[in-house]
């Protein structure tokens, strides 16, 4: 299973827990944090960039900076790229268990490599994927929110095409209904694309940017709240382990 949070922000948090700390906590829970930074040019942007990079580093993921000028298409491309990267990262860890941590792909004879890569691709395509998109909807993000919405739709489209299951959930921060909520859920675990349409109309732009607390809330959600299908899957966990063992035999 691959679990990841994609934070889309301009990186200028100003309330509560340091988002870098929160990201490190996510990593401890086996959740990878990727950050898409949508920044303006200038000093403000520079500060944001630093926070974005450190957050991704602490969360074991990638950070991608997009300047507001080149928005829509690039946010989409970067979002897709981070998802693919995270899947590859997790599959690679799995691979190390199988071929041993001291062996790398290039040590294998091209013929063996062929089989290993076939297995990698199967895993990439079929592994269960859980993605939470956490969108910064504070006032400074206002001019960029349409591009973010396009990117969310685009990502859903890519995830839906996989043979394996992809569950997506969507949050924005700060909360717009309750002022004390660091983040508010827009979409509970879902595999549906249709529900996502025109989602961001609900977002109310406000001043504070509680990135750290929002991230913390999402981590808690990922750890404790599972979709109905996922609950069934967890109940059948033992079978999954058996399958894992078979896979190892197959490769070695």
């Amino acid at each position: 299973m691959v679990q990841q949070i994609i934070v889309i922000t301009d990186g200028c948090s100003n309330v509560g827990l340091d988002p870098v700390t929160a990201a490190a906590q996510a990593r401890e829970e086996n959740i990878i944090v990727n950050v898409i930074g949508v920044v303006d040019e200038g000093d403000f942007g520079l500060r944001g960039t630093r926070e974005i990079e450190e957050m991704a580093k602490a969360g074991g993921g990638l950070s991608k900076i997009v300047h507001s000028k080149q928005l829509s298409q690039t946010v989409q491309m970067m979002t897709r790229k981070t998802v693919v990267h995270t899947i590859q990262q997790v599959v690679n860890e799995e691979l190390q268990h199988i071929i041993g941590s001291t062996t790398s792909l290039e040590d294998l004879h091209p013929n063996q490599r062929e089989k290993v890569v076939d297995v990698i691709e199967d895993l990439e395509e079929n592994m269960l994927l859980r993605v939470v998109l956490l969108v910064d909807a504070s006032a400074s993000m206002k001019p960029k929110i349409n591009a973010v919405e396009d990117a969310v739709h685009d990502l859903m489209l890519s995830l839906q095409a996989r043979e394996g299951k992809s569950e997506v959930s969507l949050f924005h921060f700060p909360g717009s209904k309750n002022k004390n909520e660091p983040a508010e859920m827009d979409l509970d675990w879902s595999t549906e694309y249709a529900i996502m349409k025109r989602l961001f109309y609900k977002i109310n732009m406000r001043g504070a940017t509680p990135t750290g607390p929002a991230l913390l809330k999402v981590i808690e959600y990922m750890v404790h709240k599972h979709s109905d299908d996922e609950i069934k899957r967890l109940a059948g966990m033992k079978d999954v382990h058996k399958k894992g063992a078979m896979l190892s035999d197959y490769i070695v």
Partner: protein
Amino acid sequence: MTTSYKSTNTTVLHEGFKIQGKWNKKNYEIQRLLGEGTSGKVYLVNYNQNVFAMKIGLDEISLQSEINVIKKINKKLEPDKKIFIDSDDFELNGKIYSFYIMKYIQGLDAKLFLNSNGQQWFHLVGLNILNQLQKLHQMNFIFGDLKIENVIVSEFGKVTLIDYGGVTPKGRSIKQFTEIYDRGYWINGTRKADEAYDIFSFAILCLILTGALSISNLTSEKRSGSYLLKRAKTNPHCKRMIPFLEKALNGTFSSTRCAREEWKKLMYGNGFENSNSIELPWLKPALASSIFVLVVTVYFSFIY
């Protein structure tokens, strides 16, 4: 689901550079850089007094994945039509690079070919692309990243598809695509690998080749199938192919075979009537010669 983009690796191997494969010990000599794809560089190399194409990958896994696809396709080709030669590694400045060797195809990309040989080749080149797609689809693969740069046209409009990085088994998610050719980008369908995905990209390719669609100044408001169709309808070169393009963009062809048949039918339709209906003033003086050219095209088409 990755997007095609230009690689950023700047190392270029110079002419005469010798490479010996680590595993298979074959010797290759670099002639020149042929091009730069999404996932690496392609060189022209000498091996056994013959020329071949060598692709050096940036990422091991994606290169190997490409090799896997090529080998699977290769198995199904006639002995004299094999495309795959070898795959191996070499070391340079302490770093290991993986590469594979393929048959070298001489030609121009589709746009350059039409620019230098004339737009009258468009229908035949289109048919030949569809033929190639149909062959691939029969092997249960979808090409995925179909675009002008990946279509090499040789003499008499013969078509070869290059760059197998996007080739995906049917039913999976498209491995690699270029946004403007992507059905999902135009909000006109999924990113699942099915025959209609390639046919959609093919329609976009036609729009670009005829100049009906330009890659620059595309905004997200314009993203829809109806916008694309509107562009096609205003272009004189697309006119005859409208029934095809409409179905291709809407995904209503049930198979590539059907798409190919429709293309062929329209291609052989009343050519004279159609050439008269192109109402561009600058074309009138050239009309006589264009009819001549059309006759020649049809003649060629029957032969090849």
